Every structure is written in C-alpha cells, then in structure tokens.
C-alpha cells in the first residue's frame, strides 16, 4: 500500500500516520504526510498511490478542488475533517468514507476495512463520477449513466446520450462507491437496474440482458441468480 496523508495539523497527521501503520502493518509500502494543497497535488501527480487521506480544510483553503482531483484518480479517497456538514457533498463526489474529527482508532480502522474487504459501501449518496479530461476534471451525474464496463485497470462509462467516458478507477473500486441501483451482472459489467428491459435466457445456460436502448450485455452465470432476485 502506498498512502498519502494531507493534513495541516502536525499532531493530527502524526496520529493518523501512527494508526494507519498499526492497521496495515507490513502491507504498507510507503506512507507520507504533506501539509498543504500544493504539495498534495504535486505528490498525487507524480506518484503511484493506493489511498489518500484528506483534510478538506487546509490552511484556510477549500479542499474541494483537490477532492475532485483525488476522486478522479485510480485510488480511493477517505476524508478526515472537522466539518461534518461537508460529509454529504464529499460522498456525492465519490469518497470511500468520511471520518469526522475527533476520531479514534476504531473509527479510522472501520474506514480502512472498506478497502481491504472490498465490500460494497452502504452509502447511497454518490451523485457524480469525476472523470479526468485533458485540462480539467468533468463531473458526470450518475443519473446519466447506463452501465459501466471494466477495461483492465480502467473502466468505460456508457452514458444515456450515447457517449462513452473513461474512468481511472477499476470496476471493483467503482462498485464499492456506486449506490445499490447499480448491479454487477458480469465480471466486466456494472448496470443500472432500471435500465434493464429484460433478461434473456439462451440455450446452454447462457444469459444476457437487453437494455431499454436495445443494447445487449452478457450476464455471468454466478451473477444470474442475484440479478433475477433483484429484478423481481
């Protein structure tokens, strides 16, 4: 694990670092603390990361710029902040968890659990997927998303206007963030349930779904049962 902590309060940064080390033990390859937005952005741009722990209020500056950048990347972002009222917005942007200050060891480790267990997050608050463009970051409203297809370490997001966007996060990571209206139907496909028109059963236990826009997507054998339950 490569972890970046962005926190301007030295004492708190040290606390986070200590607790993170205690949790990840020898799986932790590298952990670094920076105390300003500038340093944070530079570090994200130039290094491979698996997790960013971010304080939203750094030196009096609003951390939402760096938040957008962070969530558009391949790694997960966890917010550790004193301003609880910012939690909802943070979740809308697609953070894995929001840990309010003051926090204890248990609360922080609960957040870390979400990473290793890879379990689906119970939150239903995600509103936007942040997609990196050439010069800036574009926010895609998840209402406009039909389905998401895994493409190696990236994902392809298919939109209802026929367009396709690339996201740096893996299908696994996105499925952790997306609300329950999105269902995994195949190892490479994540579909919004209410976009499915019908399930097609073919000979030889082959399954597929037809979407409302007439596109046909494959359904994995193991996923079929779950999907059928949900559809009913």
């Amino acid at each position, binding site marked *: 694990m490569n972890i970046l902590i962005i926190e301007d*309060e*030295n004492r708190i940064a040290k606390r986070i670092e200590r607790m993170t080390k205690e949790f990840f033990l020898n799986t932790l390859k590298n952990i670094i603390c920076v105390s*300003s937005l*500038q340093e944070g952005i530079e570090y994200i741009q130039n290094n491979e990361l698996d997790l960013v722990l971010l304080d939203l209020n750094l*030196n009096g500056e609003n951390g939402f710029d760096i938040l957008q950048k962070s969530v558009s990347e391949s790694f997960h972002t966890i917010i550790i902040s*004193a*301003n*609880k009222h910012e939690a909802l917005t943070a979740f809308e942007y697609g953070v894995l968890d929001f840990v309010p200050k*003051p926090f204890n060891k248990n609360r922080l480790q609960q957040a870390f659990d979400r990473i290793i267990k890879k379990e689906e997050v119970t939150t239903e608050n995600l509103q936007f997927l942040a997609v990196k463009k050439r010069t800036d970051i574009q926010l895609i409203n998840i209402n406009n998303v039909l389905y998401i297809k895994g493409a190696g370490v990236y994902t392809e997001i298919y939109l209802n206007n026929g367009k396709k966007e690339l996201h740096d996060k893996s299908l696994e990571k996105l499925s952790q963030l997306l609300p329950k209206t999105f269902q995994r139907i195949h190892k490479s496909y994540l579909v919004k349930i209410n976009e499915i028109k019908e399930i097609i059963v073919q000979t030889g236990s082959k399954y597929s779904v037809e979407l409302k826009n007439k596109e046909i997507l494959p359904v994995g054998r193991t996923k079929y049962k779950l999907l059928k339950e949900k559809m009913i």
Partner: protein
Amino acid sequence: MKKFIYIVFFLIFISCKYGERPELISEKTSEMVFKKGDNKNWRLKNFNDKNWSAKKSVPEGENIFWARQTIRITKKVDSLELIGIGIHAFGAYEVFWDGILIGKNGIPGKEKSSKEIVIPDKTFHIPNHLLKKGGHVLALRMSQLYEKKDKRGIYSYILNYDFLATDKLKDTIYINILAGAFLLTSLYYLLLFFSDRKQFGTFLFSLSSFLFFLLIIIEYIKFYTSIHYANFIFRLKIIGLLTFLISFIVPYYFAIQFSLKHIKWFTYSYFFILASIYLFISDSYDQTALALSQMMWFSSTLIISYAIYKKQKAAIIVLIGLLLSFVIYKIFIYDISLFVSFSIITLCMFYLLSVKLKEQRLAFEHSIAESTRLRYELLKKNIQPHFLMNTLTSLIDWVEEAPEKGVEFIEALALEFDLLNQVEDQKLIPISQEIELCKSHLNIMKYRKEIDYQWETEGGIKNEDQQIPPAIIHTLLENGITHCAPIENNSMKFKLIIKEDLKKLQYTFLTYGKVRNTKKERKGGTGFKYIKARLNESYGSKWKFTSEAKSHGWENIITIEK
C-alpha cells in the same frame, strides 16, 4: 397613508378663502392736507384749506397740528347700519366729521402728562345722520410727541363698523392656532433634543419653530393688545430681527440635514449676505423682510437642488414644498403669504426631520444588530468546528500519548476560553488583554501544530487608554498561523508594534514566516470583515487598515486617528 395626508393638506389649503369685504360706500375726493398750529375753525366742513401743505410736517414737542381730507359718500346708507371710520396715524388725535367730534385716541398736546396708551389704529362710529350722500370733511386735531422722523401718512377707511372692529380679530383666531402648533412643536423637539444632544437638526428645527411662533405672535399682537404708537417701530424691528434669524436658520437646517459639502463656507457667506440685506435695505420694514425671506427661499432651493443632484432621500418632496410656498408668496398679500409660505417651509422641515430621524433610528437598530452579530462572531471563534474539532483531536492524542502534556494543553485551552469570556461583551479592551489573548492562542496552537511560535511586543503599553476592539490582533494572528508556514528551524515569530503620538494610535502586526500561495487575493475573508466591522463600530471612519505580504512574511497595520 402618506398620500392620504398630502391630499388632506391640499384640500385644507385650497379651501382657505379670503373673507368677503363689505361694499365700499365712500371715495376720497382730495389728498390729506396738513397745517401746524391750532384753530377751532379748522374743524369746520366749509373751511377753506387750499393753502394747506400736502406734506406732513410734525411740529416741535407736543405742539398741535391739523390734518384735513374731503371724502364723498357715494351710496345711500341704510338708517340702521353701523358705519365706522378706521384711522391709522402716529400721534394723539381728535376726529372731527363735518366739524363734529366723533372720537379720539388720546389727548392732543397732553400726550406726556396724560400717560394714556395712544394706539395708532382705532375705529370710530360715524352717526348715520352725518352720512348723507355727497361731500364730507374729515379733520384731525393732533400732536405727535414720538417717532417724529417717521414719514408715514394718515390712512382712513370708511366701512361697516362691525367689519372694521372684528375682521383682523377673526384672522388672529386662526393665526393663534397656528402659533400654538408651532410652540408645541418647538417644545416637543426641544425636549427630544435634550434627551439626545447629538441631534443638532432637531434643535435647529425646534429653534426655528419657536422663532416662527414669536414672529406670528408679534406680527398679530397689535390687533388684540394696545400698543403705544411710540413702540410701533420697535415692534417692527423685532419682526425684522426674527425674519432675519429664520431666514438664516432655515437654509442652515437644510444644509445640515442634507449634509452639504463646505458647510462652514456656506454658513459664513450666507450670513454675510443676509446681514448686508438686513443692514442696508432698510427703507421699509416690509421690504427688508421680503428681501430676507426671498433670500431664504433662494438659498434653500439651491441646497435642495444640490441634494436632488446628489440623489438624497426626500429632497424632491421638499423642493415641491418650496416651489409651492413661492407660488403662494406671489399670489397673496404680504401678511398672509408670509405665514402660509413659512408654514409650508416648516412642514417641509418637519417632513425632512421625520425622514432623517427614521434613517437614524434604522442606523441605530442596524448598529445594535451589528454589535450582536460581532459578539456572536467572537463567541463563535472557539466553537466553530474547524478550531474546536481539530483542537479536540489533538487533545485526545496528547492525552493518549503523553497524559501530562495533555493536562497542560487542557489548561491552555481553559485559559483561552476564560479570556474570551472576559472580553465577549466588550466593544474595546486594553491592548494588554488582547496580547494575553494572543499569547494563550499561540500556546494552544503549539500543541496542535508542534511549531515553535514566538511572540514579541514592541513599544510601551502606557496606560489603559491604549485600547482595541476585542480579538482583532487575535484574528490577524489566526490568519498568520493559517497562511504562513514556519521557516527552516520549525519556528514562527509574531511581533506587535505599538506606536502612539498626539494624532494617532498605530498597531503594526508582523508575521515572520513563509507565505503560502501568494497568488490568491486575501481581501474579502471573514476575518478581515470582522476586523473592519469592529473598527467601524468603535471608530466610525477614523481608522485605516492595511494588510499585505512582505519579504519577511505578512504585515498588517491598523491606524486609529484620535
């Protein structure tokens, strides 16, 4: 509601009608002629006065002189109608109608010894049998001990006796109601002024109402009180003086209420102009009063036009009022126009005062709300989540990792809360207390940021008079901590320089550190708003605040004029 009031005033105004005068029954068929000396025959109707002088010349002391005039009765008089003759003349006189004595206002030649109050205006009844159609002679046997220089002639008018006796009294009834209103207004606003001495406009309004009350009373007092003709001129002089004062105060009031620029310059030059008019145009008292009040009208209009140009509230309505008063001035005779137009001007002043008082009340309410808001903001400093939650998180960590240090941290926190509680309801606190507050804040931040913060004060704290609104330097300190990073050896220094001379008190607050992100403007932050609002609250506009990045870090300068 406002419109309704305007309409009512307008209706009242147009319903005013000048009372009807009774029919004229006579005409003068010669000029008044005069002769010094005394002769019983001079009273007679048929006496030939052809060689008498048309020019009135008053003999020495109480010596007697005579005046004669021929009058023609043009209409047949009803046998039951009372007819009178009103006479205006300086001096003691006996009135002869066709040689018959019909009345007197004193004893000619014995003015001094008789001590009677000899009034200049008096009405006498003419018996009906002496009022046959055709020519008649009015003869006056008189002496004039006082006011010999006054060249006024002798005026007479023959009309219905009741009309002559009561006409002016009827006017007086209404005018006295007006006077009462002005007196009450004046007293009310005087009391208001006493309860709040800062309201100079209120005082001026009260004063001009009072002067106007006096003017009305003195103008009309002659109709119901006997005034010796020797005091007649004195009364006119008082009227002149009152008109002068009113003519000065009214535009001055407008200038103050509309916050005219160069008000001193205006006041002196206007006073000079008025004084010249008062001193040099003195042919007739009425002329002087007319010139003064026209000057008042002219300068008021100028000031109000300027106020309209500057888009000041209520200026247009006041201008309409002034124009209306001018129209009335031109339409009616002097006595009436003076009072009606002055009343309208006073109403304008009244209106303006109410507008200004409302503005002041709103400003006052706003200032109270602002003070409450600032107090709330000060209290919020230590419970806003960023400060509180970060502090608590650090605190938990200290308690878990180094309990003894944790206790010290709690004590530092307790001190800061205590200091803030002490100043939270103050508008100004001694600078020593503010420094204490800053130091305690630094103490907390040391535990949180683990940076070596240093504090230095330069310049003597002389006395308790060196004050500052609470938490201003504290806010600058917070900004310094937030926006500057420590220099190499993980330390940061803050320095407060206090300078005081006779004219100003200056606080310079310096942060020594690396400025983060100098690109961004930091002018509108909530911290600066708080500082500016606090300075406004305590010093009005007599302060200056600058804040800028320097090579050593950050420099803030607060200058307070004395």
